[in-house]
């Protein structure tokens, strides 16, 4: 059996009680893991490469100061030989000089929906269309943002249980 990503990142092999607790919700643990695969390494990545997905995920983790998760996505990005542009966007501190209009629009949306989803409006989807994304691209991006934010919340809650 492969190691569960969330267990691995949180080091739950060293917290048998918490690992056993997650085991009481084994279906949820399994589907969290398969959702991770579907969002980050889908069979058909289409217009979002694996490296770009990992870089955006790392960026979201950093936006919420989820350092363990950000480090995980850095590792994924390096294994995929992420290009220089992907490496830069994984950290929100880096300037976006030289990024394409498509990438700038994607990053704007990632930052908005990660930190302040309540402020998202119809016009924000209009900006994605204007940058050349199609219907499926927009759903792909929304799904990636939504999954990684779910993962950030699950990990924040499990970290609370682990450390208290």
């Amino acid at each position: 059996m492969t190691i569960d990503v969330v267990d691995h990142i949180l080091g739950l092999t060293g917290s048998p009680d918490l690992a056993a607790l997650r085991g009481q919700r084994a279906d949820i643990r399994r589907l969290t893991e398969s959702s991770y695969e579907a969002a980050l390494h889908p069979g058909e990545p289409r217009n979002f490469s694996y490296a770009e997905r990992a870089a955006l995920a790392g960026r979201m983790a950093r936006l919420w100061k989820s350092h363990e998760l950000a480090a995980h996505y850095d590792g994924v990005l390096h294994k995929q030989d992420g290009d220089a542009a992907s490496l830069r966007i994984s950290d929100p501190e880096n300037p976006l000089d030289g990024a394409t209009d498509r990438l700038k629009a994607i990053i704007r949306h990632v930052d908005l929906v990660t930190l302040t989803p309540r402020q998202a409006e119809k016009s924000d989807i209009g900006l994605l269309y204007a940058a050349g994304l199609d219907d499926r691209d927009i759903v792909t991006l929304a799904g990636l943002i939504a999954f990684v934010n779910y993962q950030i919340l699950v990990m924040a809650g499990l970290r609370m249980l682990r450390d208290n």
Partner: protein
Amino acid sequence: MAREIVRSFTLDALEWDPYVTPVDLAEATPEQLNALKVTPSNTKVSAYVRVLAHEPETLTERTPLFNDIMYAKGGLSRGERELGALAASLVNHCIYCAAVHANRFIALEKQPEIIEEIYARGIKADLPEKYQAIFDFGIELTAHPDRVGVYQFYHLREIGLTDLEILDLIHAVAIFGWANRLMHTLGEPVREA
């Protein structure tokens, strides 16, 4: 029939209009139909789910994950999971999600006054102790996942939640961090004017 966009929290039954074009069932691939669970006897599929069908691989995992989190036996009560979902939807301003899950809370807990208070005072709602702790945790984890720690844990313990109940609450709030980011950003709630 004229439809109006709904901009404030409500218990009314709402519809949802997408900002992107949903998958057309007549043109859907076998993988999309499988993810949609479309069968000859079940051809009514909401616009929301047809939007998500643009990514069938994700939708196939997400549907059972959502159901397990909200309906799995044991642990946190069904109504208390709905309260966690509502807290997240309030912070993220997902009016459609809030309407659905506020109504489910009322149906399960038979306490409409709890929802009245939440809709009147939002995240500052003043609730009975156990509901308060669950609601506050939902608000905190949604708004500040980077700040959840010993203080929040202590409050959940103080009202007597077990580890499994706390885990169930974490999952219920987190899956709405997911659902709200789809439903609130990919379309808008509407009703007949």
